[in-house]
């Protein structure tokens, strides 16, 4: 690349050289075709011709004079006079000044010969002017003059011829030189244009190489990007797997803590358990965040599209933080636009997650004043949510990286307020996946204002949620029905989880049979009819999905038993695999007592 300017300068020089050479060629060709020189040449020939004519006319006159001398009656005076007149007329050409110019300095000697010739003719003219008598009388003198003239004109012709030949020779030499120069110049022009062509070729080759280089760099970059993406993907998958792996033991810890809490304990032990429980809960929240974020990074987050009431959702969120806000003595307000529709079609769970995160943050970083959640209908299919607080605010430097993962206002913030710093990154990703955008304005010490806009499809009438209606009627039925002994089969390989589940079920008033894996469960259902099966997913010998498929294929009433997957696999495709295998529903580990009772009640009621 650095050779390009160098190239350009060389080009300029070569081009100018070629042009100069061409101009020189034109100039020389022009001088070769010089009109002046051509005229000079012609005039020189004329002069030679004139001298020759003079010589010839003198000879004719001389002959006539001799005839006249020998026999005067044989010659007509008129013709004699005409001869002389013709001879006289030849002087004109000799007198012309420019003949001298034609032959240059060598003319010197010739000039006197000219003058002498003219003088002789003038002398002759004096006799002819006087008339025929005078000529007859002085005939001898005239003949002598003619003889003198003959000597002079002969000399003139010979000398002029010689000079002309010399000149022609010189001019030919000059012309040859010019042709040589032209040839030389043509060679030079060819050389320079040749060099130009060579440089052009070289330059083309250079640019081609540069392009190839650039292309290979681009493909290297592409490879690097692919590698980086793959690495990032691997990282996300690793995080997702790790958090999933951690959730299983966490489930045990939480379950055990709940069970312990219910048991007879000293006050101090109660406090310890409470702390243990809340710590485990915090840890779980962090795990959830990481899991969510990993899924988002891996592009595995699938959004639901169900009808929901945005107003109810917002009120629920506000209600959730009501106590916290009251404890911190800050006011929490919800402002709803009149134009909002009653129902929208979207993913309410993710919408709630975003609102919880933003409102939670606002409350977390506000110590006095108020937090306001404002929801407005921007246009027919866009909703805007604004969360404004009078909290500590965010510095301009931090604002730039605020939505990056694992970022908080600063390290001291982390120490003071806790959290993974993933909340905003997750919220941003969710909003973007929903087709919206989030922005923030903040002034340190005065407060922050987060607002996001998302396209939300409003729907006129909510479609009845099939899972809600039976639930309400189910509780009625249960209330009316006699409490019948329910037979629940728990399929779980992990002893801790077995204990947690058995404990929770016991609290809810159910007893259960335990199978350690899918194969054991299959044997049990063939021997006995259960009301409900709680099925773990990953087990040795036979996993949950396989066991479910086999149960559904049985030629036995047990084939119709509701099966609820109990899994730590929260990824959508895992859940889909469960439902595809024939399971009725799923419970995500770790689950609460309420989650469990809700599910059991739902399916037992359907069965009855």
């Amino acid at each position, binding site marked *: 690349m650095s050779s390009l300017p160098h190239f350009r300068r060389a080009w300029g020089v070569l081009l100018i050289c070629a042009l100069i050479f061409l101009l020189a060629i034109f100039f020389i060709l022009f001088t070769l075709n010089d009109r002046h020189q051509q005229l000079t040449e*012609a*005039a020189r020939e004329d002069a030679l011709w004139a001298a020759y*004519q003079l010589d*010839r*006319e003198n000879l004719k006159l001389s002959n006539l004079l001799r005839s006249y001398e020998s026999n005067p009656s044989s010659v007509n005076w008129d013709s004699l006079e*005409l001869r002389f*007149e*013709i001879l*006289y*007329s030849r*002087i*004109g050409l000799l007198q*012309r*000044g420019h003949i001298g110019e034609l032959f240059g300095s060598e003319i010197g000697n010739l000039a006197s010969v000219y003058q002498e010739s003219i003088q002789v003719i003038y002398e002759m003219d004096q006799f002819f002017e006087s008339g025929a008598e005078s000529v007859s009388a002085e005939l001898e003198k005239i003949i002598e003059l003619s003889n003198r003239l003959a000597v002079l004109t002969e000399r003139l012709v010979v000398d002029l011829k010689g000079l002309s030949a010399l000149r022609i020779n010189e001019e030919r030499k000059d012309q040859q030189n010019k042709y040589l120069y032209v040839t030389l110049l043509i060679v030079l022009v060819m050389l320079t244009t040749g060099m130009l062509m060579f440089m052009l070729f070289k330059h083309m080759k250079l640019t081609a190489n540069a392009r190839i280089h650039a292309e290979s760099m681009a493909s290297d970059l592409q490879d690097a990007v692919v590698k980086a993406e793959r690495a990032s993907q691997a990282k996300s998958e690793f995080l997702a797997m790790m958090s999933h792996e951690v959730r299983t033991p966490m489930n045990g810890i939480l379950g055990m803590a709940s069970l312990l809490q219910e048991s007879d304990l000293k006050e101090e032990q109660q406090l310890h358990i409470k702390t243990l429980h809340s710590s485990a809960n915090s840890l779980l929240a962090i795990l959830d965040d990481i899991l969510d974020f990993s899924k988002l990074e891996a592009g595995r987050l699938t959004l639901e599209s169900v009808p929901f009431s945005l107003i109810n959702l917002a009120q629920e969120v506000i209600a959730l933080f009501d106590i916290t806000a009251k404890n911190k003595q800050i006011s929490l307000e919800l402002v709803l636009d009149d134009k909002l529709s009653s129902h929208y079609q979207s993913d309410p769970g993710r919408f709630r997650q975003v609102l919880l995160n933003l409102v939670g943050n606002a409350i977390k970083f506000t110590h006095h004043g108020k937090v306001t959640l404002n929801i407005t209908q921007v246009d027919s299919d866009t909703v805007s949510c604004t969360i404004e607080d009078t909290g500590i605010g965010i510095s301009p430097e931090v604002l730039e990286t605020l939505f990056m993962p694992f970022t908080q206002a600063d390290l001291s913030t982390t120490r003071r307020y806790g959290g993974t710093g993933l909340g905003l990154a997750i919220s941003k990703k969710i909003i973007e996946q929903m087709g919206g955008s989030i922005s923030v304005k903040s002034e340190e010490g005065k407060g922050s204002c987060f607002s996001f806009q998302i396209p939300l499809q409003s729907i006129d009438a909510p479609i009845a949620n099939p899972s809600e209606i039976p639930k309400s009627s189910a509780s009625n039925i249960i209330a009316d029905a006699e409490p019948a002994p329910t037979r629940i089969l728990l399929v779980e390989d992990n002893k801790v989880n077995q204990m947690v589940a058995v404990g929770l079920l016991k609290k809810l008033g159910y007893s259960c049979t335990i199978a350690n894996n899918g194969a054991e469960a299959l044997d049990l259902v063939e021997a006995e009819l259960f009301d409900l099966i709680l099925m773990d997913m990953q087990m040795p010998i036979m996993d949950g999905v396989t066991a479910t498929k086999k149960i559904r294929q049985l030629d036995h009433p047990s084939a119709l038993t509701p099966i609820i997957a109990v899994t730590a696999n929260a990824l959508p495709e895992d859940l889909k695999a469960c439902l595809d295998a024939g399971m009725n529903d799923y419970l995500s580990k770790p689950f609460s007592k309420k989650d469990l009772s809700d599910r059991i009640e739902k399916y037992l009621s359907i069965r009855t």
Partner: protein
Amino acid sequence: MNKHSRSWVLTTVLFLSILICPKLFAQSPEGQPVLTMSGKIAVTNQGDTWVFDRAMLEALPQGKIITETPWYDEVSEFEGPLASAILEAVGADFSDNLRVIALNDYSAVVPASDFIDHGVILAMKINGEVLRVRDKGPLFLIYPFDSDPALKTEVYYNRSVWQIKAIEIY
């Protein structure tokens, strides 16, 4: 072109007149013969030729050309009969060629069409003075060199014969 066709009409009229009343034009030279026309001519007054004396030439339509020439240092004024009028007087064809012969028997070939196309004259006077033999007289074929640069070439200089004594049409 217009001039050409006009000349043609003139030629035809002359030719017809000659046929009807040749004697009227068949005048003989009274003075010294100056110009002898021979070859393809329609009329004769001396053997096979037509001879002009000075008076006859002066009686023809005259022309005047002021031009620079290679033979004189300054611009000169030439006067004499129109060369085309001379050809018309003898009923010559303008598509023929002419051999213009000088006193010293030098001759040049000139296409007769030149006489119409370029308005050539056979000059008898230069700057008001009669051209003597010693001054390239009696007749000097002059092209209007200054009015057409194309004439300033060797071809026309060579056709500009001086000391003309005869013209042969062939």
